[in-house]
């Protein structure tokens, strides 16, 4: 079964970059453009890993993360923050909510893969039959 990775970001550009980064791996990248859509996607698809932005309309990433951690069925899903927010007090607050890792934008594909590889066993995409 391919890993399911959820990218929650209001920027289509970032979601495309995440998708591109994992195109050679046995992964399916699901997309959501705010925290509310993200929570709906988590309930529906139960991803193996979430990349989460902070500043988004409708519901921001910190609110989504807080709600996720309040849900006993979903709180163990690993979350990696992917955001331009690097203010130390905010990072410390988010870390205490319970995130697996934190990647500050700007970023390279390799960094995304390296961080995901600490959480998931990334396998090359099987050759098409």
């Amino acid at each position, binding site marked *: 079964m391919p890993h399911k990775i959820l990218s929650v970001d*209001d*920027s*289509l*550009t*970032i979601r*495309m*970059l995440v998708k*591109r980064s994992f195109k050679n791996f046995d992964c399916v990248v699901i997309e959501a453009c705010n925290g509310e859509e993200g929570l709906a996607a988590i309930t529906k698809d139960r991803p193996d890993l979430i990349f989460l932005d902070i*500043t988004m*309309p409708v519901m921001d990433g910190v609110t989504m993360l807080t709600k996720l951690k309040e849900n006993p069925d979903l709180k163990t899903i690993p979350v990696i923050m992917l*955001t*331009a*927010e*690097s*203010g*130390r*007090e*905010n*990072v*410390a607050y988010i*870390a205490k909510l319970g995130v697996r*890792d*934190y*990647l*500050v*934008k*700007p*970023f*390279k594909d390799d960094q995304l893969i390296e961080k995901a590889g600490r959480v998931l066993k990334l396998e090359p995409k099987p050759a098409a039959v």
Partner: protein
Amino acid sequence: MSTSNSAEDIAKTFGMEAVPESVKRLTQMIAGRGASIEEFGKFIAQDKELTARLLKFANPRAVDQFDYNITTVDGALQRTGMSIALLLAMGDPLVRGVLKTFKTMLDINLELMPVSSPFQEAHILGEVSFSGKANGKVQLRLTKASVPVIGERLLGMAPEDLADPAMAADVIGELCNMVAGNFKSNLCDAGLNCVLQPPKITITDDFKLQSVDGGNSERHPFRSPELPLFVDLGVNPWAGE
């Protein structure tokens, strides 16, 4: 610094870069805002680069430093006000963020220029406002011809894929977000907590450096073989007082 050791330690565990020296300097300047001009000036005088920029700002008509009427930091602060020194001190973290964003995301090595020819035609203006203890805005100005270059380097997109204005705005908006987000984080680390607004992308032929209520603005011209870029910073560092 306003940042606690434990917060810095947590950031380290995530592999984040240390807070730049220029942000630490800015933190000290912000903490010293209640000081007299003389005390504030003594601190600035320890930084040669900041002193040189402040003197240049205080002598706008001078061709070079031999032409300066104002030659001391105290004199420059009396002429310009302390908020100019804060604006200039914020320039370094902003420039670092711009250089890093374009290098990391686009593999473009920008060079900061002392001056540069203005855009003569309609161009793209990406703006992110921030508000809180400091108010202001970061603006990126790019030529229309830069959009396909950025789209190709960032996402491998063909120029026709960027014909959709919403897609082009998303690409430019995300670059603005990265630059402004890093800068805002630096302001927060320096004790000026603020929040960002979503980026606004427009086409304009107005090249004027825009003012900010109660604040000052500075323009940073960049060049690379791939594209020209101007980054404007307007800030009122006293907004939260």
